[in-house]
């Protein structure tokens, strides 16, 4: 090792680190401040539209793990009535291939990401839990018709008053006492 630059390299590095003291940190204090996620998020859930589903079973063939279980019986006018539509979200990898393959737009990905449960068996979603509702909204992944219903994504590129994530200046820490993580 030679001190090729008389120690100037070390000093330059330390000057850069010192300059960062005056930039605001980019931490988002999660339970108190939540960012808007992408409109096309593949989230942690599936959303099913019971009025559009015809029970064709294309999604079950598209799933690479075989997670979707579908059971139907013939009703009047030789349409299928769906008895059982279950997705094991514990094994699902949320790749979205089932959403892409549905010919009737009856499946979409969900926007919730706080879906932790206490028991593994609770992760198997039956058709009531999967149906679309106010607490179970669809995301715009492969379904551009839902683009308007979702807020814009907050990007780190833009400042926070432009709807982005980056803060202009933050003193030591700015938080309200939330209910705890």
């Amino acid at each position, binding site marked *: *090792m030679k*001190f*090729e*630059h008389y*120690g*100037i*390299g*070390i000093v*330059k*590095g330390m*000057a*850069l*680190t010192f300059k*960062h003291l005056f930039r605001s940190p*980019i931490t988002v204090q999660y339970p108190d401040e939540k960012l808007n*996620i*992408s*409109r*096309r*998020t*593949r*989230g942690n859930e599936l959303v099913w539209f019971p009025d559009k589903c015809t029970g064709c079973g*294309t999604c079950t*063939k*598209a799933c*690479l793990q075989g997670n979707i279980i579908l059971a139907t019986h013939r009703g009047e006018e030789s349409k299928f009535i769906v008895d059982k539509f279950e997705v094991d979200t514990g094994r699902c*990898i*949320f*790749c*979205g*291939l089932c959403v*892409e*393959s549905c010919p009737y737009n009856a499946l979409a*990905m969900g926007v919730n990401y706080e879906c932790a449960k206490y028991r593994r068996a609770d992760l198997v979603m039956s058709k009531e839990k999967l149906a679309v509702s106010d607490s179970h909204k669809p*995301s715009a*992944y*492969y379904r551009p018709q839902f*683009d308007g219903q979702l807020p*814009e*994504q907050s*990007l*780190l*590129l*833009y400042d926070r008053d432009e709807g982005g994530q980056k803060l202009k200046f933050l003193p030591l820490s700015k938080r309200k006492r939330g209910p705890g993580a």
Partner: protein
Amino acid sequence: MPIKTEQFYLNVGPQHPSTHGVFRLRLSLDGEVVTDVEPIVGYLHRGIEKLAETRTYTQIIPLTDRLDYLASMTDNVAYCMAVEKLAGIKVPERAEYIRIIFSELMRVSSHMMAVGFYLNDCGAFFTPVLYMWREREKILDLFDMVCGQRLLYNYMRVGGVSQDLPDEFMPAIKKFVAEMPRYIGEYNQLIKQNEIFLARSKGVGILPRETAINIGASGPVLRASGVKWDIRKMDPYSIYDRFDFEIPTGEAGDCYDRYWVRMQEMTQSLRIIEQAMSQMPAKGPVCADVPQFFRPPAGETYGYIEAPKGNLGFYIVSDGSIAPYRLHIYPPTLINITALKDMVIGWKVADLIIIFGSMDVVLGEIDR
């Protein structure tokens, strides 16, 4: 009179803060000097090649995501290109440009991760990592905007990409490409002339030119040893022949050169992204019409691209049915690691960690 010493064996085990995954090395040490090294892989084997024999061609794409999980887009691109070569499918123009933009963004992100953790192995306590990750967050936000996920994208399809770009993508990426050179300048200010870093990595772990060519190394490891070999220029795939960029090489093949080649490649990738953004057609189809259960003609093919880690190739044998008969993956990092014995023996334990970090290993690729 030489002192009588004894060799002892140290197991740098599968759980270690610096092996970048579950990788095991059995070392024989003489004091601090390494006399023999034996890598043991297989702790992350998931049987991707076997699983691929029972999945359709579209269903294999999420499986290929999980090979080099830090650079999923390029894994997808390599696989899709191999299948398109087999079946003779033509990809629309707009989709080609989108593929190139995302491959180069992926290269920037993967190199930032590699350099950041290389410096973490050198001992700088996470500071370079966090500075580089701030920019990587911006890239991951862009990926999130397009395909909904931040790490394992499943974005490329056989015949194009799966969805078109949203409207807010172009202004965002223009802002990113305009801001990025300033941050690369900051990284250079922090690291490039730092004497301690130079002392740790200049002249350490030299991979001579002949050895690199003989073992079949590829990627930044090969280019740092002085061989000007990049598949994007030598055997251009997709539309890389329309862009103007350079291939950085190193001279000595030591750890410093591997780091510097990666930093320069980041700048070249930004050049390619700028050119692609200006040449891209504003509207058009983004995927060729390929059915869900798609049957390519029987035959075999080998498709390869320049992934951030090297030459990633897919060898597909098809018998005309909806699933491939055999899929074999050629991982660049596994071949690069075969040089570990030449590079490490004679150096100290501290250097072993540095050399291993500079080769930028991801266990998902090695073990498949």
